[in-house]
């Protein structure tokens, strides 16, 4: 599957950004310091083979790792941000937008589209932290809302992969309103009993954490992702004490009861597919092994999908 195919619906005037491929080199894991060959890291979905550290994942790579090969068909990218507030701080908002566009080759922080997973019809929304910190402006809210509407009308389960610093300041309260707008759009999905599953990745904070990302029928998270409403600096300034070890990380919130399961990225494909199949009471799909996966999958946390009994 080529990347072109992945993004065949991208409007022609948009240039593709960087390839997202890692250079053909050795790198160093920021957590365990182990040397790792980038090709191997890539094949391992950017999870450190030594310690399991989850590197940030470019959107295209993530989609490749999730859906049935060649089935992703992009629906997003037909709208673009304007500057309704004429917001200027150290530079105009329009300049910031332009930089994000150049950097990512996108019009906003949300990539959405149709695909199948194990043959099941799904809709996916993946947030791109590289676009203005994954912040939620009018475009992002609209993309997500349209995806929800499309999922409902085409009877697809919806998977949303969150990565966001929160609301987009430069769009003021318009940004805030996206939290409500997207939530409204979930109702039609719910009434059709279509599953809505969210995947929280590092970081998922602010207005995104406090709206559509939090209210998946099932909420899973990647290991060690930063999650929460308030930023750690703000909290520290408020309470004037050190934050506890592991505070606001995936494992913390799993223990606090807010996340269904912390799941290794390499298991998402199988896990999400089986969840959707069960929630919609469809026969058990066989999920084809991911070609780019190099090492054998680890035993899943908190439950097994292996057939037993």
């Amino acid at each position, binding site marked *: 599957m080529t990347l072109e195919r992945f993004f065949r619906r991208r409007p022609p005037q948009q240039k593709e950004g960087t390839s997202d491929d890692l250079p053909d080199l050795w790198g160093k894991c920021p957590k365990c310091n182990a040397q790792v060959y980038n090709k191997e890291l890539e094949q391992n979905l950017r999870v450190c083979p030594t310690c399991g550290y989850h590197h940030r994942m470019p959107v295209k790579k993530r989609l490749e790792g999730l859906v049935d090969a060649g089935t992703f068909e992009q629906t997003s990218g037909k709208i673009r941000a304007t500057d309704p507030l004429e917001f200027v701080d150290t530079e105009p908002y329009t300049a910031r937008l332009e930089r994000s566009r150049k950097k990512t080759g996108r019009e906003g922080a949300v990539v959405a589209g149709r695909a199948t997973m194990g043959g099941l019809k799904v809709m996916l929304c993946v947030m791109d932290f590289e676009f203005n910190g994954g912040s939620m402006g009018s475009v992002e809210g609209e993309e997500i809302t349209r995806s929800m509407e499309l999922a409902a009308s085409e009877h697809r389960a919806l998977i949303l992969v969150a990565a966001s610093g929160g609301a987009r300041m430069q769009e003021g309260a*318009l940004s805030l309103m996206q939290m*409500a707008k997207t939530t409204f759009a979930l109702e039609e999905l719910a009434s059709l009993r279509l599953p809505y599953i969210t995947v929280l990745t590092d970081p998922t904070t602010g207005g995104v*954490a*406090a709206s559509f*990302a939090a*209210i998946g029928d099932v909420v899973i998270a990647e290991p060690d992702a930063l999650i929460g*409403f308030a930023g750690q600096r703000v909290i520290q300034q408020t309470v004037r004490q050190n934050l506890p070890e592991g505070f606001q990380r995936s494992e913390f919130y799993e223990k606090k009861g807010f996340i269904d399961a912390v799941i290794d990225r390499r298991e998402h494909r199988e896990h999400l597919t089986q969840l959707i199949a069960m929630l919609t009471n469809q026969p058990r799909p066989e999920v084809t092994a991911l070609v780019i996966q190099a090492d054998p999958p680890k035993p899943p946390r908190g439950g097994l999908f292996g057939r037993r009994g």
Partner: protein
Amino acid sequence: MALEFEKPITDLETRIAELKTYGVTSAVDMTEEIALLEKRLERLRLETFSTLTRWQRVQLARAAGRPTALDYIANIFTDYQELHGDRAYGEDAAIVGGLARLEGRAVIVIGQQKGRDTKENIARNFGMAHPEGFRKAMRLMDMADKFGLPLITLVDTPGAYPGIAAEERGQAWLIAQSIQKMTRLRVPVICTVIGEGGSGGALAVAVGNRVLILENAVYSTISPESCAAIIWRDAKEAEKAAEAMKLTARDLEKFNIVDQVITEPKGGAHNDPEAAMQNLKTALLEHLAQLEGLDESALIRDRAARFRKLGVFEEISA
């Protein structure tokens, strides 16, 4: 306690009062002079309040003497019966609510409550709710939904509390749950920003069929201070940030984020609370009358349609 920009006005008020006293005690007739000065005062007030900067509005919205949610509740409603608790973890005094009557019609009212003095502010955490506060609000929303009672919310918070315990108990999730709960209510929902509409903590109780705002209230996705801290790395640039953020009632009206701006009396709500309350009451009754014509599913559709339109972007012609 006058705000900085109100000083010239209050100073002049003091002078006039002194002059009046002088007139009485000295038996010198100052009537003409006083009349002139009072006209001047009137003009000064008008000038000041018709040219308020956004930052000045922020200060007004937060002014210590400004009426709080419970003040509005006590004056606009009768038979208020406060209900407590979230049935899960605790009672959060930063959010109040219960049953009440609005011109005889039973409603559920929810208010974000700031303190009226330091002691109360500490008890109410300056109007910043923890997760249990939002859960308490949700319970009241459930009651409104179950018994078919209109829901009136009064928004006035710097934001959800950014503390360790609040995050530990899932602040993000509770805000999201509260928003979602409001999208589903089968009753008329009217929300009014009466002071500060601070971010997700405000939106959590502001998903209404109508969203109203008082003239000098503000509503934003972040406080000007925090915005300034992020952009200029200096919270003191808040004035600059407030200008950029377009967070005043009139700004929000332009983007359809609010449906009506409720006029405040001259000098702001804190100068004549009764008048401000009367204005809000009139507006609530009008909107409620309109909404009571809609059935349950129409109310949900109306609310969804209201929010569906919010956002500004352009279509790319391929």
